[in-house]
């Protein structure tokens, strides 16, 4: 078993334990328990809860760190895509500019012809 698998299995067990300790059957048993038993139950329940939060945080932190390590690549991808978009924009602008220039040349040519 890898550490990740062990952690995953532990988390499954802890969640199941929390569910059992909060179940109606357990609560009914607590009704007739001694104060010491009730205190022990409360302490164990909170320890289980904190262990769940810690393990979940650990798992999410690992994924978050892996995602952060990928951010440079994603940003680079955005930059490259933007560069390609700019090239297309340049083509559009060039076509427009050539059209406008030729229109102007046409007008000048007409003027020259009529002069």
């Amino acid at each position: 078993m890898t550490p990740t698998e062990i952690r995953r299995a532990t988390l499954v067990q802890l969640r199941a334990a929390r569910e059992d300790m909060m179940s109606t059957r357990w609560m009914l048993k607590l009704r007739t328990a001694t104060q010491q038993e009730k205190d022990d139950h409360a302490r164990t329940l909170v320890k289980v809860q904190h262990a769940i939060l810690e393990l979940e945080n650990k798992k999410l932190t690992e994924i978050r760190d892996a995602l952060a390590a990928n951010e440079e690549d994603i940003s680079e991808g955005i930059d490259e895509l933007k560069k390609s978009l700019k090239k297309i924009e340049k083509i559009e602008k060039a076509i427009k500019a050539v059209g406008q220039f030729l229109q102007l040349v046409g007008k000048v040519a007409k003027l020259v012809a009529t002069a």
Partner: protein
Amino acid sequence: MKNLCSALLAITLVTLSACGSAPPTQFAEFAKLGTALTDSTPPLLDAAFAEAVSADSIVLSQARSTLVSPEERLDMLEKSSTLLRDRLTIYADLTRHSRLLRSYFVTLGLLADTSGDSKIGDGAKGIVDQLSALHPKLENAMVGDFAVADFVKAAAPVAVGAFRSVALQRELEARADAITKELDLQQAVLTAIAEQMRSDIGLRLQKQNRERIEMPFIDVGDLPSDWTERRVNSLKTPITLTAVEAAAAASENLRVSFIALSEGGAAGGSLSQLLQDVSTVVSLVETLKKSPQP
């Protein structure tokens, strides 16, 4: 005419080099769905955090009901709050990251969007029209059986479309591994959150059921008049859980679609499945926004 032939050859070469890659329209669809899915992540993280705090509060309240030592109670509360604050920091980082991924999808979508290319064709035809005003012979010039003016109008969008395909293909070659890894991790996040929410929501429903359904049934006396209705509601899956599970499924499909696109194959099948999944997620998240739980 020689220059025109050279231009036609260039258009043909760019177009040919674009062959074998998935069409830009499929990338555009993929990018649109990716954007919608990344938009859904932050509200799901908010819901997951609310469920985590709710579950923790249920446990602490239960412990508080028996433990009398104020120091012990305070220690428990403080430790829980510290762990939940850490969780909030992680979720904030994940939200920030999903915004970055969203930017990637949006930019990819813009590059793959061919809807404005016909305007470029109109612009190119405008040039031919202007040229023909200067040189009337050009108006009737033919390349094979095609009039130059019509050909240029049709060829310009094709060439730009081919340029888009080549640029997308280049992007895939450069970043296919990074994006596949990214989508793997996105799925891992959503799966982890779905597991967490399943457990936290289970705890909340367990308490709710005990108080509203089981205890009135166990204890002596009449059952509440809406007891059956309470049972019906308790058996339904909460919308938050349905939403996050749908998002986890959609993120898997997003990965499959990306692999299909990056391998140059048709991603049509996986894209239509992805469309269904993402639509489900979006509508669930919209409902969630209107009536936040728990």
